[in-house]
């Protein structure tokens, strides 16, 4: 039993935090609201650091690491509201493609994709298999889409390159989500895996998504509570900082307590998935539910403590609020994951 990150993992996180503090300011996020979708110089920087290829096998130019390594980095990308699709590409697609590659499926198509992810030349959007008709986050501007279709042997997983798909943009509250509805035709050339094998890979992807997005939500919650605590120390009413009033203190303390407990829940789930623990799916659901609740509570409290200024476009808070609300619902809401958890607990009885 040693429930902690290694020094190396923490040093990597600190290095990524430093880079992102410079490369992904709130002005940069605002610029991304207006910019066209697609790979950016910031993505290239993250690839050079090894972040993008973190979970790509070493044979394909990556670091061959797992979710425990990714979680602290996803926290940092959440903290700065990174506009690029790191979690979809590195947290979901790369491990899925690596698993398929290791299993020898889908001939020789996968290796080059993994190479291109690691070198920063391929971003991936992944469709949530539970809601196949819904718009896909990151679909606009993605180089590759991993999508589900119905086939003769049950569901199939397809890898569709940007040239073979028409993506109709769907406006999102957070424009950097790059939501889009893909129109495409499944073919033997796009098919990666089908039937029971596909189900196993899809289930693993759902769990990884829950944990990686959970980690992003931790970073968002931390950023909002930190920003709001600073505001409460600064903003004066009745001749003193509003943060000296218990009504304000208790709002922020409540959010902080939720965040404190969400952290080990997410980290523990990352470990459970990496180590193939029998209750990993259950842990993933607890992680997504807990992190979603912690972040939406941090968002609620942050807006309330900021007051009217927090409701403006000018104040940076809304950038974090919008990402939080999107991610809290993405890949299963808190309520969805609590229902999934309870089903799993009942199945044991």
């Amino acid at each position: 039993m040693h429930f902690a990150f290694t020094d190396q993992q923490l040093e990597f996180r600190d290095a990524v935090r430093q880079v992102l503090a410079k490369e992904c300011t709130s002005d940069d996020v605002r610029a991304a609201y207006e910019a066209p979708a697609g790979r950016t110089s910031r993505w290239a920087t993250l690839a050079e650091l090894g972040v993008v290829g973190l979970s790509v096998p070493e044979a394909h130019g990556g670091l061959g690491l797992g979710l425990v390594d990714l979680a602290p980095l996803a926290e940092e990308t959440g903290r700065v509201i990174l506009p690029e699709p790191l979690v979809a590409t590195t947290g979901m697609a790369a491990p899925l493609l690596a698993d398929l590659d290791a299993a020898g499926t889908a001939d020789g198509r996968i290796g080059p994709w993994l190479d291109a992810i690691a070198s920063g030349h391929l971003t991936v959007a992944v469709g949530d298999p539970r809601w196949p008709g819904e718009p896909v986050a990151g679909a606009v501007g993605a180089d590759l889409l991993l999508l589900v279709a119905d086939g003769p042997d049950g569901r199939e997983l397809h890898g569709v390159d940007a040239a073979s798909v028409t993506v109709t943009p769907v406006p999102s509250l957070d424009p950097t989500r790059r939501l889009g509805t893909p129109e495409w035709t499944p073919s033997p050339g796009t098919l990666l895996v089908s039937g029971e094998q596909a189900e196993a890979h899809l289930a693993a992807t759902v769990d990884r998504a829950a944990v990686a997005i959970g980690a992003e939500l931790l970073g968002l919650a931390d950023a909002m509570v930190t920003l709001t605590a600073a505001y409460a120390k600064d903003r004066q009413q009745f001749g003193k900082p509003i943060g000296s009033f218990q009504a304000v203190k208790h709002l922020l303390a409540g959010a902080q307590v939720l965040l404190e407990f969400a952290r080990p829940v997410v980290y523990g789930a990352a470990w459970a998935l990496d180590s193939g623990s029998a209750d990993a799916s259950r842990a993933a659901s607890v992680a997504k539910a807990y992190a979603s609740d912690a972040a939406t509570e941090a968002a609620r409290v942050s807006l309330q403590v900021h007051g009217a200024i927090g409701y403006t476009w000018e104040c940076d808070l809304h950038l974090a609020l919008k990402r939080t609300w999107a991610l809290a619902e993405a890949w299963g809401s808190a309520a969805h994951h609590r229902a999934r958890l309870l089903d799993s607990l009942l199945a044991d009885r």
Partner: protein
Amino acid sequence: MDEPNEQPMDLHYSDAQEAFRAEARAWLAAHAPAPRSLPSLDTAEGFEAHRAWEAELAADRWSVVSWPEAYGGRGVGILEWLVFEEEYWQAQAPLRVSQNGIFLLAPTMFEFGTEAQKSRFLPPMASAEEIWCQGWSEPDAGSDLAGIRSRARRSDAEGGWVLSGQKTWASRGAFAEWCFGLFRTDPEAERHRGLTYFLIDMATPGVTVRPIPQIDGETGFAELFFEDVFVPDDLVLGDVGKGWNVAMATAGSERGLSLRSPARYSRAADRLVDLYAEHLARDPGGAGRSADAVARAWMGAEAYRLNTLWTATRVLDGGSVGPEASANKIHWSETDLAIHRAALDLLGPEAEFHGDGVDAPWLDGFLFALAGPIYAGTNEIQRNVVAERMLGLPRA
């Protein structure tokens, strides 16, 4: 944390820890009384029945496993203690009547006590021959603990202190043999200064105990009156005038790692899911309305388990527990309430059944849980601590 940490994250207990678990499980299976078979520890009869059970635990060195062997423990670490607690609650063994001593005073005594104090007090605490209560709160010093008025007057002639004043809400106070209390030794000093931490024999002349019936009708706590109660110098814990610092160590244990082990809540949460399954089979529509509350309660217990392992690792690596202990206290007390609240909702009209001959574990647990957000420093005080010491918000 001087050594670089290269050890990868691992949430498995070691083989040795699992062997320790097996040993604890086997012992408890052979010795633990049937669940809920002892009378309540807040009655005279139940107090003695629980004392006898703890003596049995102590005889085979299971009462305080993490203490050094010299004082009755097994000298194992915090992780083994957590494993033992998992087995203890899984076996549905009785509540610990010595909890104020072993979980609160003992960690403070290990930090501040003299060798003589440790040798004198720890072994009978471990064996429950001497049971301790806590004398901190006063009628006018509750959340504002630094407002303590009970005094200790110096007596050089006798070589000690003469205590006077009133303490209240002393858990186990009705039946305990000893009390750890805070008294003002410097009448000129204000607030947190000038307090001293005393170990008081409840049989000393001048101590009067008035039991207070609690919300459930039992006398779990008491008022304590001190009229010129003499306490010799060797029963001062820590330095004279430094009682606040010593007390904060106790408070850290009370809110942090040692008072409420996660196993207690994990076990209750599992029982809640059992109850849910039972009701779901009988009345799917009705029970289904509680699904979200049941899942939330279970998650609260699981988060507490994981957070405890996270904190224990930090402590084993040389870190410390600071204001996180306040976050911890808020979490476990609210989780306990959420678990029992969800259970009562499932029970519906049966939830209120109580009285002679009615076994009402969920209602009893609910009444106990209601005290959680109040004792050990109210959750409102803990939120102030979190806001001021974790988030740096200014004091009022």
